């Protein structure tokens, strides 16, 4: 598509604006995590680091419980991700591909659950989990994170299921294959991008969750990164180097995952969006 010169200029300026808006803060934080303390708090901030040190990372990994938080977050994130996929994929299949009684009502309930304010059920969930002996247990976070990732995941699977021709299933059905076999052998391989997208979504939501993790976990060695790390902010007199190193490390896992399956995730988000 040909664009006029002023329009192309406007486009370039806008691209630059968003590039700086998103990129610059991350650049400052990540490059800052390698600066010496005196450069971090210098009156004249530097865009390009003038010093290099790994002391903040060393301190973070040796002297704080940050590694424990990372491990806990990874456990909770991966488990929530797997559980969400296991629950969302069959449910979405039933919703969008099978004959299901009360479909409309159930689907509406799912959509409603998506925008549900978690804080409203925070107190009763705490009470309920206390009764079940789940307080201060990572399992509690896995359950809660799956709950909140589930509605959006089911909705997101819809666009992936829609891309698979029904003839394929029906041919297999004519050959007498039972539905679970069809699902496992034919559909799952085809909707793997969708499964990846749901898995990534659940992992990210779990990775960033703060509210429930701050209430349901009591002991320090079970904390996840958002809560444990937030504790570090207040613990020491603000040690920016330490915090910047911690922030950079917390960015790393989601960036790695996103560079592997980010595209599938984005197409899941946009292909089925708001229909």
């Amino acid at each position, binding site marked *: *598509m040909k664009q006029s010169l002023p329009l192309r200029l406007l486009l370039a300026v806008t691209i630059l604006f968003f590039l700086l808006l998103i990129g610059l803060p991350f650049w400052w934080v990540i490059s800052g995590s390698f600066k010496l303390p005196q450069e971090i708090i210098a009156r004249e901030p530097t865009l390009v680091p003038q010093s290099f040190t790994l002391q903040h990372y060393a301190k973070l990994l040796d002297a704080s419980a940050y590694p424990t938080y990372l491990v806990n977050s990874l456990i909770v994130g991966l488990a929530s991700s797997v559980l969400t996929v296991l629950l969302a994929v069959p449910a979405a299949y039933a919703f969008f591909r099978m004959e299901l009684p009360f479909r409309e009502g159930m689907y509406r*309930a799912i959509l409603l659950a998506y925008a549900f304010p978690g804080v409203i059920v925070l107190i009763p969930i705490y009470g309920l989990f206390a009764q079940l002996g789940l307080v201060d247990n990572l399992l509690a976070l896995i359950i*809660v994170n799956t709950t909140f990732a589930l509605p959006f995941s089911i909705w997101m699977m819809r666009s992936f299921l829609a891309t698979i021709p029904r003839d394929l299933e029906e041919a297999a059905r004519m050959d007498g294959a039972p539905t679970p076999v069809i699902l496992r052998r034919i559909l799952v391989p085809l909707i793997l991008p969708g499964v990846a997208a749901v898995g990534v979504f659940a992992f990210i939501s779990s990775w960033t969750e703060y509210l429930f993790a701050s209430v349901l976990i009591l002991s320090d060695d079970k904390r996840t990164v958002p809560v444990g790390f937030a504790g570090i902010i207040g613990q020491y007199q603000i040690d920016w180097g330490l915090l910047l190193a911690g922030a950079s490390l917390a960015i790393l896992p989601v960036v790695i995952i996103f560079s592997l399956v980010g595209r599938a995730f984005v197409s899941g988000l946009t292909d089925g969006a708001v229909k």
Partner: protein
Amino acid sequence: MERGFPKPRTKEAADPGVGGQGLRRRRLSERKLALLFVTPALGLLALTLLWPLVLAVDLSLRDVRFIGKPGEFVGLANYTDVLGEARFWQSGLRSLIWVAGNAVVQTALALAAALVLHQSFPGVRIARVWVLLTWIVPTVVVVIIWRWLLSNSGGMINPLLVQAGLLEAPVGFFSSRESAMTTLVLINSWRWFPFVTLMILAALTRIPGDLDEAARMDGAGAWQRFRRITWPLLQPTLSVLLVVGTLLSFNVFDIIWLTTAGGPSGGTQTLPVLIYETAFKGYELSRAAAISVLTGLALMGFAIAASRSMTREEGA
């Protein structure tokens, strides 16, 4: 389902007894299987959302100070207490300001970003994925990024604004109620606008390209085409996003809590912050539950009213 089965159906017609029954039996088992597939998901939602909602109502009618102790039944006393408190109404007002501010800033940013990402330029496919960067990192990281950048010890924003001549001297972005609220709205929008961007981008890709092309052939300028074609066709998406976005940004707790903890002097204490504080700082669990229930009712009212007005618009 029957569409793809021309053969079995003819057989069925020839021998309705056997084929019909077989089909019916299979349909019945498919329905059972479908129910089996949705049950675990719905069961979990019922256990962790629906049931706690019932518990919240029960809790709000009692006087519970400690989790696990049943507490005396006090009827609507918690509700009259809460409704008589200025704090509750002030927090409600702050939540309104919060939601409205986020809606304006995020829609503006997201619309601009989506229009850009809808064009073709080198690297656009990568940009469509990585625009989400601020949305995939933990809130606590967002909070640290901005607390540092806005701080007066090594923060970049103050020197930048002073150099650009926009500020005379460095300011404390969280020192007054108004500026704390404004700053938080901007930070939260920075985190969330990419998500809205992708939703709008999805709607843009569904607008048929030949419509735009035809208008261009007729000599319509870029602005005219946006005003007359793109904007009206985006309306349905934008109104859905407004409803979902309102609920989602209403829910935001962690960014506020970790940045200002509701301060200074309550200036950023929205309803979720008030609920959290009442329950886990003041240990007034029942009162917090009453605020939760009132909040839930208000949001439900909003959602119903919004979806009604949307269906009405569609009908008109």
